[in-house]
Protein backbone atom coordinates (compact mmCIF):
# COMPACT_ATOMS: atom_id res chain seq x y z
CA UNK A 1 0.00 0.00 0.00
CA UNK A 2 1.23 3.51 -0.74
CA UNK A 3 1.69 5.89 2.14
CA UNK A 4 2.58 9.56 2.43
CA UNK A 5 4.67 9.07 5.54
CA UNK A 6 6.13 6.17 7.44
CA UNK A 7 6.70 5.65 11.15
CA UNK A 8 9.21 3.14 12.47
CA UNK A 9 8.02 1.43 15.64
CA UNK A 10 10.13 -1.71 15.39
CA UNK A 11 11.11 -3.01 18.80
CA UNK A 12 8.52 -0.90 20.61
CA UNK A 13 5.74 -2.24 22.79
CA UNK A 14 2.39 -0.89 23.85
CA UNK A 15 1.74 1.98 24.39
CA UNK A 16 4.63 3.43 22.39
CA UNK A 17 3.40 2.68 18.81
CA UNK A 18 0.03 4.27 19.60
CA UNK A 19 1.61 7.24 21.39
CA UNK A 20 3.97 7.83 18.46
CA UNK A 21 1.20 7.40 15.91
CA UNK A 22 -0.91 10.03 17.67
CA UNK A 23 2.05 12.46 17.63
CA UNK A 24 2.98 11.69 14.04
CA UNK A 25 -0.57 12.20 12.78
CA UNK A 26 -0.24 15.88 13.67
CA UNK A 27 2.33 16.22 10.85
CA UNK A 28 -0.02 14.78 8.24
CA UNK A 29 -2.58 16.64 6.22
CA UNK A 30 -6.19 15.56 5.96
CA UNK A 31 -6.52 12.66 3.53
CA UNK A 32 -2.88 11.56 3.77
CA UNK A 33 -1.94 8.02 4.68
CA UNK A 34 0.47 7.00 7.45
CA UNK A 35 2.28 3.68 7.43
CA UNK A 36 3.32 2.33 10.83
CA UNK A 37 5.92 -0.42 10.84
CA UNK A 38 6.01 -2.46 14.03
CA UNK A 39 6.74 -5.91 15.39
CA UNK A 40 4.53 -5.90 18.47
CA UNK A 41 1.56 -8.09 17.54
CA UNK A 42 -0.73 -6.04 19.78
CA UNK A 43 -0.78 -3.33 17.14
CA UNK A 44 -3.08 -5.43 14.99
CA UNK A 45 -5.81 -4.92 17.59
CA UNK A 46 -4.67 -1.57 18.94
CA UNK A 47 -4.55 0.40 15.71
CA UNK A 48 -8.13 -0.38 14.59
CA UNK A 49 -9.26 0.49 18.14
CA UNK A 50 -7.29 3.74 18.06
CA UNK A 51 -8.90 4.61 14.73
CA UNK A 52 -12.37 3.81 16.01
CA UNK A 53 -11.89 6.15 18.98
CA UNK A 54 -10.16 9.00 17.15
CA UNK A 55 -12.30 8.78 14.01
CA UNK A 56 -9.38 8.20 11.64
CA UNK A 57 -9.74 5.60 8.91
CA UNK A 58 -8.10 2.21 9.32
CA UNK A 59 -7.01 0.97 5.90
CA UNK A 60 -5.49 -2.41 6.63
CA UNK A 61 -2.56 -4.56 7.68
CA UNK A 62 0.29 -6.05 5.67
CA UNK A 63 2.50 -8.68 7.28
CA UNK A 64 5.90 -9.91 6.14
CA UNK A 65 7.57 -12.35 8.54
CA UNK A 66 8.14 -10.28 11.72
CA UNK A 67 7.25 -6.96 10.21
CA UNK A 68 3.71 -5.68 10.62
CA UNK A 69 2.68 -2.69 8.56
CA UNK A 70 -0.54 -0.91 9.37
CA UNK A 71 -2.10 1.90 7.35
CA UNK A 72 -4.15 4.79 8.63
CA UNK A 73 -5.74 7.68 6.76
CA UNK A 74 -6.12 11.00 8.51
CA UNK A 75 -9.75 12.04 8.18
CA UNK A 76 -9.75 15.45 9.83
CA UNK A 77 -7.42 18.36 10.53
Amino acid sequence: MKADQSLDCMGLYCPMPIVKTAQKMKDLKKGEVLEVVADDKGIKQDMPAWCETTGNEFLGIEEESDEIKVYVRKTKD
Partner: protein
Amino acid sequence: MAEKEKMSIVVFSDDLDKALAAFILATSGASMGMDVSMFFTFWGLNILKKNSGGGKSKGIMKKMLNFMNRGGSRRLKLSKFHMFGLGTWMMKKLMKETNLPSIDEFITMAKQMGVKLIPCSTSCGVMGIAEGAFREEVESLAGAAYFLNEARQSKVALFI
Protein backbone atom coordinates in the same frame (compact mmCIF):
# COMPACT_ATOMS: atom_id res chain seq x y z
CA MET B 1 -16.62 14.15 18.81
CA ALA B 2 -17.44 17.67 19.97
CA GLU B 3 -16.43 17.37 23.59
CA LYS B 4 -13.39 15.25 24.47
CA GLU B 5 -14.11 12.01 26.28
CA LYS B 6 -12.73 11.88 29.78
CA MET B 7 -10.73 9.31 31.68
CA SER B 8 -9.94 9.41 35.41
CA ILE B 9 -7.50 7.26 37.30
CA VAL B 10 -6.93 7.06 41.05
CA VAL B 11 -3.34 6.03 41.69
CA PHE B 12 -3.30 4.67 45.24
CA SER B 13 -0.28 2.41 45.03
CA ASP B 14 3.39 3.25 44.64
CA ASP B 15 4.33 -0.18 43.30
CA LEU B 16 6.46 0.09 40.19
CA ASP B 17 4.29 -2.37 38.28
CA LYS B 18 1.03 -0.66 39.17
CA ALA B 19 2.42 2.78 38.38
CA LEU B 20 3.50 1.42 35.02
CA ALA B 21 -0.01 0.13 34.29
CA ALA B 22 -1.49 3.48 35.29
CA PHE B 23 0.85 5.47 33.05
CA ILE B 24 0.46 3.11 30.09
CA LEU B 25 -3.31 3.56 30.25
CA ALA B 26 -3.06 7.31 30.81
CA THR B 27 -0.73 7.93 27.86
CA SER B 28 -2.74 5.59 25.63
CA GLY B 29 -5.94 7.40 26.59
CA ALA B 30 -4.35 10.77 25.81
CA SER B 31 -3.17 9.36 22.46
CA MET B 32 -6.73 8.36 21.73
CA GLY B 33 -7.83 11.93 22.19
CA MET B 34 -9.14 11.57 25.71
CA ASP B 35 -8.86 14.13 28.46
CA VAL B 36 -6.98 12.23 31.17
CA SER B 37 -6.70 13.07 34.88
CA MET B 38 -4.65 11.08 37.34
CA PHE B 39 -5.35 11.52 41.05
CA PHE B 40 -2.54 10.44 43.30
CA THR B 41 -3.43 9.51 46.82
CA PHE B 42 -1.75 7.82 49.79
CA TRP B 43 1.28 5.77 48.70
CA GLY B 44 0.65 6.81 45.11
CA LEU B 45 1.94 10.27 46.04
CA ASN B 46 5.42 8.78 46.26
CA ILE B 47 5.46 8.53 42.47
CA LEU B 48 5.22 12.31 42.21
CA LYS B 49 7.82 13.15 44.84
CA LYS B 50 11.07 14.60 43.60
CA ASN B 51 13.86 12.07 43.33
CA SER B 52 16.18 14.61 44.88
CA GLY B 53 13.99 15.09 47.95
CA GLY B 54 12.87 18.48 49.17
CA GLY B 55 9.96 19.99 51.03
CA LYS B 56 10.11 20.06 54.80
CA SER B 57 7.43 18.30 56.86
CA LYS B 58 6.30 19.71 60.18
CA GLY B 59 6.16 17.61 63.32
CA ILE B 60 8.28 14.68 64.41
CA MET B 61 5.91 11.90 63.21
CA LYS B 62 5.44 13.42 59.77
CA LYS B 63 9.17 14.05 59.50
CA MET B 64 9.85 10.43 60.37
CA LEU B 65 7.22 9.17 57.93
CA ASN B 66 8.64 11.15 55.05
CA PHE B 67 12.16 10.15 55.96
CA MET B 68 11.27 6.45 55.76
CA ASN B 69 8.71 6.87 53.00
CA ARG B 70 10.99 8.93 50.82
CA GLY B 71 9.38 8.28 47.44
CA GLY B 72 10.54 9.44 44.03
CA SER B 73 9.81 7.86 40.66
CA ARG B 74 13.19 6.12 40.58
CA ARG B 75 12.74 4.48 43.99
CA LEU B 76 9.56 2.52 43.31
CA LYS B 77 9.58 -1.21 44.01
CA LEU B 78 7.83 -4.12 42.38
CA SER B 79 4.77 -5.44 44.23
CA LYS B 80 6.17 -8.96 43.81
CA PHE B 81 9.71 -10.28 43.51
CA HIS B 82 11.35 -7.12 44.77
CA MET B 83 13.88 -9.44 46.45
CA PHE B 84 15.80 -6.70 48.28
CA GLY B 85 16.07 -4.76 45.05
CA LEU B 86 17.34 -7.51 42.78
CA GLY B 87 13.96 -8.27 41.19
CA THR B 88 13.15 -4.60 40.70
CA TRP B 89 16.58 -3.98 39.22
CA MET B 90 16.03 -6.84 36.77
CA MET B 91 12.57 -5.61 35.81
CA LYS B 92 13.92 -2.12 35.13
CA LYS B 93 16.64 -3.68 32.99
CA LEU B 94 14.06 -5.70 31.05
CA MET B 95 11.92 -2.59 30.56
CA LYS B 96 14.93 -0.80 29.14
CA GLU B 97 15.78 -3.71 26.85
CA THR B 98 12.26 -3.70 25.43
CA ASN B 99 12.40 0.08 24.91
CA LEU B 100 9.65 0.73 27.42
CA PRO B 101 9.94 4.18 29.01
CA SER B 102 10.82 4.41 32.71
CA ILE B 103 8.26 5.87 35.14
CA ASP B 104 10.28 9.09 35.04
CA GLU B 105 9.98 9.24 31.25
CA PHE B 106 6.31 8.31 31.44
CA ILE B 107 5.64 11.25 33.76
CA THR B 108 7.32 13.68 31.35
CA MET B 109 5.52 12.12 28.38
CA ALA B 110 2.12 12.15 30.09
CA LYS B 111 2.57 15.81 31.03
CA GLN B 112 3.50 16.74 27.46
CA MET B 113 0.38 14.97 26.24
CA GLY B 114 -1.80 17.01 28.54
CA VAL B 115 -2.45 14.41 31.25
CA LYS B 116 -3.23 16.14 34.54
CA LEU B 117 -1.29 14.88 37.56
CA ILE B 118 -3.19 15.84 40.69
CA PRO B 119 -2.07 15.10 44.26
CA CYS B 120 -4.81 14.46 46.82
CA SER B 121 -4.88 17.24 49.39
CA THR B 122 -6.06 15.10 52.31
CA SER B 123 -3.27 12.56 51.89
CA CYS B 124 -0.76 15.38 51.68
CA GLY B 125 -2.19 16.85 54.88
CA VAL B 126 -2.33 13.59 56.86
CA MET B 127 1.08 12.42 55.72
CA GLY B 128 2.62 15.88 56.07
CA ILE B 129 3.89 16.12 52.53
CA ALA B 130 4.84 19.70 51.71
CA GLU B 131 3.92 20.94 48.23
CA GLY B 132 7.60 21.54 47.59
CA ALA B 133 8.16 17.78 47.79
CA PHE B 134 6.53 17.25 44.40
CA ARG B 135 8.09 17.49 40.98
CA GLU B 136 7.17 20.45 38.81
CA GLU B 137 4.78 18.53 36.54
CA VAL B 138 2.01 18.29 39.15
CA GLU B 139 -1.14 20.44 39.13
CA SER B 140 -2.53 22.02 42.25
CA LEU B 141 -3.87 19.80 45.02
CA ALA B 142 -7.48 18.70 44.95
CA GLY B 143 -9.94 16.67 47.02
CA ALA B 144 -12.46 13.87 46.57
CA ALA B 145 -15.19 16.14 45.24
CA TYR B 146 -12.96 17.26 42.38
CA PHE B 147 -12.14 13.67 41.51
CA LEU B 148 -15.76 12.54 41.71
CA ASN B 149 -16.85 15.40 39.50
CA GLU B 150 -14.25 14.33 36.93
CA ALA B 151 -15.09 10.63 37.34
CA ARG B 152 -18.80 11.33 36.98
CA GLN B 153 -18.14 12.74 33.52
CA SER B 154 -15.60 10.07 32.58
CA LYS B 155 -16.33 7.07 30.42
CA VAL B 156 -13.35 5.33 31.95
CA ALA B 157 -12.62 5.57 35.68
CA LEU B 158 -10.02 3.34 37.30
CA PHE B 159 -8.52 2.72 40.74
CA ILE B 160 -4.98 1.41 40.69
